[in-house]
């Protein structure tokens, strides 16, 4: 007791000197551990331990219930589905042994499973997939992603989700222990990329039933068939560990023994932990990104998430807003400087987006980027914006317009909102913007009620196909929520989805036409930027793979070289 009192007193002395020191100007920012010669060696060190941070807890580790990036990342590293995203973000066979057999019209896929084991030593069987998928679609499970991913893809999914059919009727069947047969509703060109998604992971029926309500509530109550097993996770805590899974079929390619993860919500704290050498990688946001822009350990990864303004045409789905006028929408879409926004305000390497479907995300058979079809649309142009603005005002017969701008209340979002308000008001005379910043959940609620005029929103893809973005704006889409209804658009999407399902070139063009319609012709949304993930990462961390859709990270191939 005495001793600890002394420690306290000493600490107090420290506290006081902090203030004195804080007044004395700042020191150079040296990042420890950067003096390692990165080229020196790529030979793995003896100690294979990686220290990482997450920005949020794991809400659930049940693949049927998971909805968030942390959950998907964890599952991606401790479990494995039929397919897995490789280092180049391409889905390749994992638990499936080789490519599946597909019937002629592309509606029945037959997978053969390889010899893989759960962490308890038992074999991964076709029944584990059948069980997990049926569980995910069963309304009783209350899964959000199950129906979302399966509806319209796997046979009978929609009927089951709406309670019109029994879960047993889902188009998935374990023919024997090693053979899984999946029947689709219609041909789905991107079906195999779905197989790498977290919702389609297997679950062992016996184990899930035995654990009952306790299933996946902590790291002891899950079975693992992926590169790592989860340990030291109490279900709601701020810390967990990955340990190498000795039962993993491809364990020879897994080099890391341990990954220590801690949840750190303050970016500043994360950077401090990185600088003190305690953590090997720290994500950066706006302010910190700008400060570390020239750091040699800065790692930038382009994401496939696109952010845009939703322009609500009917408030509450009933009364017309000024945004129902196409000229007004066009004016707004062109009235803010995206270059300046991404370069100076966001300053995290994100790029201006003059499109809806991100670049470097989807490619046709000739490996040409989908982006090449339409190129840039509705670029920043203050003069053009003003012209359409005045035209729009005339059509509406008003001089002044007040619009509510709904955004998140995160630090970076607030800064962006302020910038947008300033830009829009400056470039469009007579416009006044009322900012409304609410927590993410509240924004989504207001979105659902269509209770906003302009909303800053974003979308990250769930599978590798332009459709994941294009399908958002059909008139019956649950994500539309801005009363954009275009028969032409609906038809184009239907064409892409059904009519041309087996004609890739025509399908591609239909999707591109739809994009052009929604972004340029109708200016239903105003794209803002495509996000880039930016982080500080120690040079001794090798092959940590970052995906641009699905789960964020794969640690399977990561290793430490040159730390010692």
């Amino acid at each position: 007791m005495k001793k600890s009192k002394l420690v306290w007193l000493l600490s107090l002395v420290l506290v006081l000197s902090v203030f004195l020191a804080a007044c004395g100007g700042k020191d150079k920012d040296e990042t420890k551990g950067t003096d390692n010669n990165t080229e020196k060696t790529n030979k793995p060190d003896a100690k294979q331990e990686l220290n990482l941070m997450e920005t949020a807890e794991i809400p659930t580790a049940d693949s049927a219930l998971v909805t968030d990036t942390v959950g998907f990342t964890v599952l991606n590293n401790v479990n494995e589905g039929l397919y897995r995203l490789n280092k180049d973000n391409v889905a390749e066979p994992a638990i499936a042994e080789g490519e599946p057999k597909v019937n002629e019209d592309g509606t029945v896929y037959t997978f053969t499973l390889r010899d893989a084991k759960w962490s308890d030593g038992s074999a991964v069987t076709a029944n584990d997939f059948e069980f997990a998928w049926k569980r995910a679609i069963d309304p009783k499970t209350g899964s959000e992603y199950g129906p979302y991913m399966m509806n319209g893809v796997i046979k009978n999914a929609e009927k089951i989700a709406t309670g019109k059919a029994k879960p047993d009727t889902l188009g998935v069947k374990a023919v024997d222990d090693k053979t899984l047969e999946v029947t689709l509703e219609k041909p789905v060109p991107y079906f195999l990329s779905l197989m790498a998604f977290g919702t389609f992971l297997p679950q062992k029926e016996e184990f899930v039933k035995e654990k009952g309500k306790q299933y996946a509530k902590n790291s002891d109550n899950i079975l693992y068939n992926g590169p790592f097993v989860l340990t030291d996770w109490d279900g709601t805590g701020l810390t967990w560990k990955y340990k190498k899974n000795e039962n993993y079929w491809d364990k020879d390619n897994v080099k890391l023994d341990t990954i220590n993860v801690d949840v750190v919500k303050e970016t500043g704290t994360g950077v401090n932990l990185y600088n003190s050498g305690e953590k090997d990688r720290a994500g950066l946001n706006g302010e910190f990104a700008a400060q570390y822009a020239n750091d040699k350990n800065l790692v930038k990864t382009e994401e496939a998430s696109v952010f845009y303004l939703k322009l609500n045409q009917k408030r509450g789905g009933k009364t017309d807003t000024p945004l129902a006028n196409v000229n007004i929408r066009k004016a707004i879409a062109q009235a803010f400087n995206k270059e300046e926004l991404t370069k100076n305000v966001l300053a995290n390497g994100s790029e201006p987006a003059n499109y809806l479907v991100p670049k470097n995300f989807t490619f046709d058979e000739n490996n040409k980027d989908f982006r090449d079809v339409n190129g840039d649309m509705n670029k920043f142009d203050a003069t053009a914006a003003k012209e359409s603005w005045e035209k729009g005002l005339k059509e509406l017969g008003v001089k002044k317009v007040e619009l509510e701008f709904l955004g998140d209340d995160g630090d970076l979002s607030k800064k962006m909102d302020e910038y947008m308000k300033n830009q829009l008001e400056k470039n469009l005379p007579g416009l006044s913007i009322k900012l409304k910043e609410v927590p993410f959940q509240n924004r989504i609620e207001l979105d659902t009620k269509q209770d906003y005029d302009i909303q800053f929103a974003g979308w990250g893809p769930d599978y590798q196909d332009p459709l994941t973005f294009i399908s958002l704006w059909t008139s019956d889409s649950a994500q539309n929520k801005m009363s954009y209804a275009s028969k032409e658009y609906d038809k184009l999407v239907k064409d892409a989805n059904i009519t041309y399902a087996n004609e890739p070139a025509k399908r591609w063009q239909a999707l591109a036409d739809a994009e052009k319609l929604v972004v340029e012709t109708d200016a239903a949304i105003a794209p803002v930027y495509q996000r880039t993930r930016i982080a500080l990462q120690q040079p001794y961390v090798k092959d940590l793979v970052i995906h641009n859709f699905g789960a964020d990270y794969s640690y399977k191939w990561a290793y430490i070289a040159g730390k010692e």
Partner: protein
Amino acid sequence: MTQQYDKLPPEAFKLVKVNSTHAEQIARPSLNFWQDAWLRLRKNKAAVISMIVLIFIVIIALVGPHLNSYGYNDQNVSKANLPPKISWLAPLGIADGYAEVAGKKVDVYAQKNVKENYWFGTDSLGRDLFTRVWKGSQISLLIAFVAALVDVIIGVAYGGISGYYGGKVDDIMQRIIEILAGIPNLIIVILMLMVMEPGITAIIIAIALTGWIGMSRIVRGQVLKFKNQEFVLASRTLGASNSRIIFKHLLPNIMAIIVINTMFTVPTAIFFEAFLSFIGLGLQAPNASLGTLINDGYKMLQFQPYMLGIPAAVLSILMIAFNLLGDGLRDALDPKMKD
């Protein structure tokens, strides 16, 4: 010795008449309570300095935003993150527009080709911090004063009624207070802010909602103390009405303690607003308060310490000044009093 007296002429002696009215005369000018307090307060250097500082800050908070040509929400992203530059201080090496970038001192103004000077620098959207800091002080002070005022009104009314009428009324009112006091006000404030449309009014309501309890308790205590004292009894005997007793006799006597308490409420409110900004329930952009400025600045601590330092310094000076003035007033108005 005695003989000498004999030599004195009898005319030297005159009979003095005692004028009884002289005994009642007051040689020094009469001082009322406040003059007396002021005399005592004046002796307390810290309190006087604090008062001057406070007056100065209030004035500059009102005038400051107009001292240069920038508006508090004029953005110019190409001039973002400039360090402070004041031309007459620059030769001293302070506020010279230099900042350390990657270990080297760089003239950021030259680098970004900025001709004009920003006295407190600019923030990440290129807004003038001088204007924003004083605009922010204005809003913080406004929030604090209004919250304090509401506290005083509700607190004095509640405490006064409870104490003055006593008996059943007091009993019921105090039970209510007892129950309310158990509610953790921070939590309630947070919950209230989640429901209300965020903004200055919401923050004021939230702070005032729970702040008056302390005031009402103190007022009640004082009223209880005074209401049975002789001068009140005398007044009552002479047939004074309740309102006369309250306003003429009780209120002046408890005024001191109300003033002192308010002095401590104001800084608490300023502080609370800053805390709310941190957990994301503060003012809506682009409004600035000291709280939001500090919250913006603390993330840049390692790189642009001025963004935190300046608003934090203003906040600290305000807090210190209010506290010292409060202490001084307490000593001056009632040296024996404690909180």
